[in-house]
Every structure is written in C-alpha cells, then in structure tokens.
C-alpha cells in the first residue's frame, strides 16, 4: 500500500512540472513575426503578397521660403494610388520584390472670366484625370549583416523603376483638360542601405536611398506636338525610426524622413518648373500582426519643406505570408 501510495504521489507531483515546457518555434510561427522581430529579408521559400493604398490631396504647400500656405487658386487635386507587392525569399539573405502600382489622379480647375468691355462672362471647369498602371518597380534586397545572429543588422537594396506607365498626355482637349500620364517616362535606379538595431520590444532603424533618374523623351506639356528630352532631379531619402510593441501583436512605428530633390533639366538646361525641393516629415504607423496577416495604417505628416505639398498622406496596407 505504501509503495502504491508513494508512486501515486510521485505521479501527482510530476504533473506540476508539465507546464514548464519550452516554446517551440515552428515555420508557421516564423511567418507570424512582426515588423519589429522579423529578419530584414524574407526566409528562403517564403512568399509575401501585399496591397498598399495611398490617398493624398492638394490643399496646402510649403512655398519657396518654407512657409506653409494654402494653394491660392480655386483648384483641387486628389491622388489614389494602389500598389500590389510580391516578395519572395530566394535564400535566407536575399529577397526579390515586384511592385505594380495603379494610379487614379484627379485635378479640377474652376475659373470665371469677366470681360466688361465686351459685356461677357465665361465660366470654365477643367478636369485632368490620370488612371492606369504606373511604373513597375523590381527590387533586390540582401542582408549584409544578417538578422539571425546579430542585434544590429544591415541590408542593401537595389530598385529599378521601369517606365511602364503612360508617359504622355492623351485625349488632349486643351492644356487643362486631358488624360494625365500615369508614369514618369524614365528609368530610375535606386540603391539604398537600411540598418536596424533590435532590443525587444524596441527596434531602431536608419536608412538612406538615392534615386538616379535617367534622361528620356516625352511630351512635357499637354498640347505640345513633339517629345522633348528631360531628366528629373535626383532624389535622396534618408531617415530613421523608433519602433516598439504596444502589445504582442501591435507595433507602433515612428519614422522621420528627409527628402531632397535636385533640379531637373529640359533639353539639357535646368528647367524653371522643376525646382530644387526638400521636405521633412513624420510618419506614425500602427501595424497589426494577426497570425500571417499584417494590417497597417500610416499617416505621413509633412513638418517642413520647400516647394513641396504640406498635406498628410494616408496609407493603408494588408500583407500575407505564404
């Protein structure tokens, strides 16, 4: 009886230890990592698809003296941009990416002209629409300092923008009424570096990208009969972010960006309407990781700038890892 009792007690006690199991990370868990904890590239064989929606409008801008002011004329413009993203992990350090944008832009101009000398009045409403596939972007991302064994990781990127969007105005009625281009009409090469320091539940990032725009030809103004050579000014984007988990599945990203655009050229000479511009902006992002789904929303708030828009941009996105 004593032996049976002792064995029984040992069995009972042993049940207490069952709870002390180590959490096993399986491949499904790896696909559920958040933007803070995931590696800087996809793991080998992982496929991520995503849809990004971007909404912006034109109401205020930073003028030449960096002062925020309303656009003076009675115009109105909105931009709706949808971007389909596909990423594939070639190996644990190399990811390739394809981004396909669809653009829907609208610009309205309303004016009235009174001519008392001929006793007449003209009211004019012009709409410029730009709808269609934009410029595709292919991208290769490589981890120089891998995330696997380091708190500090670094990746290099090389983007290539292909001028697949319509580059010239179409269905031109007059200089204010036509189908706007949906692409820039030129190849762009963008090398970049992105570094991250992970200290759970925080992460800190720093990045720098440089857009080199190639020379191309297109119709620069609606109504022009001939294509002209142009080159957009090169663009630098640099910044950093402080990110942290609000809970296990919601991350808050706080990003600061500085952008600088050089002066563009038309037919080899600096163009008056392609300004040197810069902007400084803050983007808070909330990202929800629900298993393999990732939902996010972001607002890009321009803080300061010169000859750039001063209205916030809204970004919503959804991603899924296979």
């Amino acid at each position, binding site marked *: 009886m004593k032996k049976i009792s002792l064995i029984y007690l040992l069995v009972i006690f042993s049940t207490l230890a069952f709870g002390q199991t180590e959490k096993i990370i399986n491949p499904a868990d790896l696909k559920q990592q958040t933007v803070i904890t995931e590696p800087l590239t996809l793991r080998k064989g992982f496929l991520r698809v995503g849809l990004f929606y971007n909404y912006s409008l034109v109401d205020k801008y930073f003028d030449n003296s960096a002062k925020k002011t*309303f656009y003076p004329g009675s115009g*109105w413009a909105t931009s709706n941009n949808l971007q389909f993203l596909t990423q594939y992990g070639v190996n644990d350090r190399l990811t390739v990416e394809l981004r396909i944008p669809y653009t829907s832009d609208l610009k*309205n101009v*309303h004016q009235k*002209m009174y*001519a008392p*000398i001929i006793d007449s009045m003209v009211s004019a409403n012009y709409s410029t629409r730009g709808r269609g596939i934009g410029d595709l972007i292919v991208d290769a991302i490589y981890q120089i300092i891998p995330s696997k064994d380091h708190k500090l990781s670094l990746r290099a990127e090389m983007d290539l923008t292909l001028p697949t969007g319509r580059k010239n105005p179409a269905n031109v009625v007059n200089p204010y009424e036509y189908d706007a281009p949906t692409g820039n009409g030129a190849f762009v090469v963008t090398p970049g570096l992105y570094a991250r320091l992970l200290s759970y539940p925080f992460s800190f990032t720093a990045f720098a990208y440089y857009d080199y725009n190639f020379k191309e030809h297109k119709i620069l103004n609606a109504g022009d009969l001939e294509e002209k050579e142009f080159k957009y000014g090169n663009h630098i984007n640099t910044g950093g972010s402080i990110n942290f988990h609000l809970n296990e599945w919601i991350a808050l990203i706080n990003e600061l960006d500085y952008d600088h655009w050089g002066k563009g050229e038309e037919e080899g000479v600096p163009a008056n309407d392609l300004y040197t511009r810069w902007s400084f902006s803050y983007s808070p992002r*909330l990202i929800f990781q629900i298993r393999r789904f990732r939902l996010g929303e972001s607002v890009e708030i321009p803080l300061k700038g010169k000859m750039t828009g001063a209205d916030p941009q809204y970004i919503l996105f959804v991603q899924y890892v296979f």
Partner: protein
Amino acid sequence: MKIKLLFTIVAFSLICFNPAKGQTDTTKRDKYTLLTMPYNKRPLSLYKGQLQVNAGYKLAVRSRSFDNNGDVIDLKTNGNSSVSNYFFLDLKYGLLDFIELDAATNYMHQGIRSESIYYLNSNGITLLNNLNEYKGMGDLLLSASFRLPFDFKFVDFKLTGGIYIPTAEYKTPEPSSTISDYVDSYNYTVNYHFNNKNGFGVPVIKLSADVKFTISKFSGTAGFTFQDPTKEGTNIRWDQTLTNQTFNYSSSSYRYLVDRMMMINASVHFQAAGWFNIWLNGNYSRNSEGWTEYRGIKYANPEKHLFAIEPGFEIQISPSLTLYQVVGYTFSGRNTDAPFYLFTTISYNLFPFLK
C-alpha cells in the same frame, strides 16, 4: 496510519488539481478587469476613480455640400473644395460609479477657397483669388454625467449637462490679403485672405441623454443632444480698400445668435472579440433659430439638416490604451457641407488612486 496516508493522498491530489479550478469566471472587479472591460459589458460612464484622456484627430474632405433643397453641390467643380483638420482633447473622471466629470476642447484649421475670377479689361487682366481661413482653439466644454446607480447588466441610461465656456479667442482678426504678380496697375493678382477663429463667443449649454442595451455580444445605443446659446454675441466684421498695392482695413461690430442644435443618434455594436468592437452609427442633426446682423438688420441663418452614417471600430491595444476609428459619410442634408471624414482617437485609461 492508513487513514493518515489516505488523507495525505487526497490532500495532495486536491492541491495538484487545484489549477483547474482557476478556469472559472472571476467576479473580482480589480483595476485590470475594469480597464479591459469590453464595450458590451461597460456602463455608459466611467468607473469610480477611473481617469480617461482622449486625444483625437479628424481629417474631413469637404468636396460636396447640400443646397437649400437638399440637392448635392459638387464643390470640386465649383472651385471651393477644402480640407478640415480637427484635433480633439477630452479629459474624463469617474467621481463615482454613476457620476462622471468631463472637460473637452478642440483645435481646428481649414481654408476654404472660392472660385478664382479673372477681370479682363482693355489694358490687361486682374486675377482675384479668395481664401477664408478658419483656425484656432475651440471653447472649453465642462460637463457632468449621471447614470443609473446600479451595476450595468443589460440596460443603462445616462443624463449629461454641460456648458461651453467661451475661452476661445473668437473675435475675427484682421484680414491678411496680398497683391502678387504685379506688372502694372492693370495686370496683377489680388489674393483676398480672410481670417476667422473658432469658438461660439458666448456660453452655450449642452444637455444630452443616452440609453444602452446589451444582449450577448450585441449592443445598441441611442442618444439625444441639445445645444442652445445663453445670449447674443458680438463680433467684428472687416472691410478693406486697396490703394497702391496696400490694403487698408476698417472694422465694424455686429451682433449674432448662435444656432440652436439638436441631434439624435443610434448605433449597433458587435463585440467580435474581447478586444475588438465594431459598430455602425447613424446621426441626424438640425441647426436652427440663429441669426446674424447686417447693417442693423437681423437675418436668420439658413436652417441646416444633416444625416450621416459612421461605421467604426474599437481596439483594446493594452489595458491602458484603446484605439477608436470612425469613417463618416454624409448621406443627406440641407444648407450644409457634406464632408467625408476619418476620425481617429487614442484613449488612455488609468486608476490614479487605486493600487
């Protein structure tokens, strides 16, 4: 001995299997439980000792409005679409389980352009641009709410009374119009820029009643709100003359009465998970009885009606933090703007005096 051994075995068995008993509902109303209480189990006011800070931002895109007949005016093709940026700060405290105190204010910024007009004469073209800017802090709303003095199970009812204290700098400042692109006295651009402030300028009382029903994961709410000014107000109207590219301004005072506002709203909520609540709200508002004085004569303000639908959600991010997001679409109305808006609010909750 056998009895002692048997007793020991039974006692240890009970100790070891005791954790299974933990999987029952706790009725203890600790701080954590109260802070994470889902919407369908929450009363209409805060718990005793609960402090809540709400900070919100509303982006409203004003691209349509309704005329006197309720017909839609497309402002995009009229040249006066605009964007409104509205910030909101609200501080609430649960004095008792059925009494809540509230202080709220706001800040808004909006610029409304009118159509650009060209005047063509024999010597050149003059262009007129017109901008009405609204910018500034709103009044301070102080209110107190009283709800039914027993635990919320299925039905709750709340009465609120408050007053807008005219703390805002409401008086219309001087315009800041400019001349640009000046070539000669016939060829130039006039940029009219009229500045306006936020706030009623007089005390305005606010009364409201709300009722809430909960059945399982579904909840329904309905409310009625009434706002009325306590007296007439006085403000400044500016006139301007242009001489040699310089604007000269002169002001005159006028009287006005803030509109009386009545609003009813109803919403259906679904508690999809303990941390996630979605809803559909509908509200109808009517502004009337107000007037504005022009040259000594009182002119009635146009009566405004507006019906809007607002789907939204609430996400409990942590025990202290909750995120609310509402999208608003205006369906019908009269004499008022019909903006599309996105309202995001972060709510921070705590019990500062509870261990």
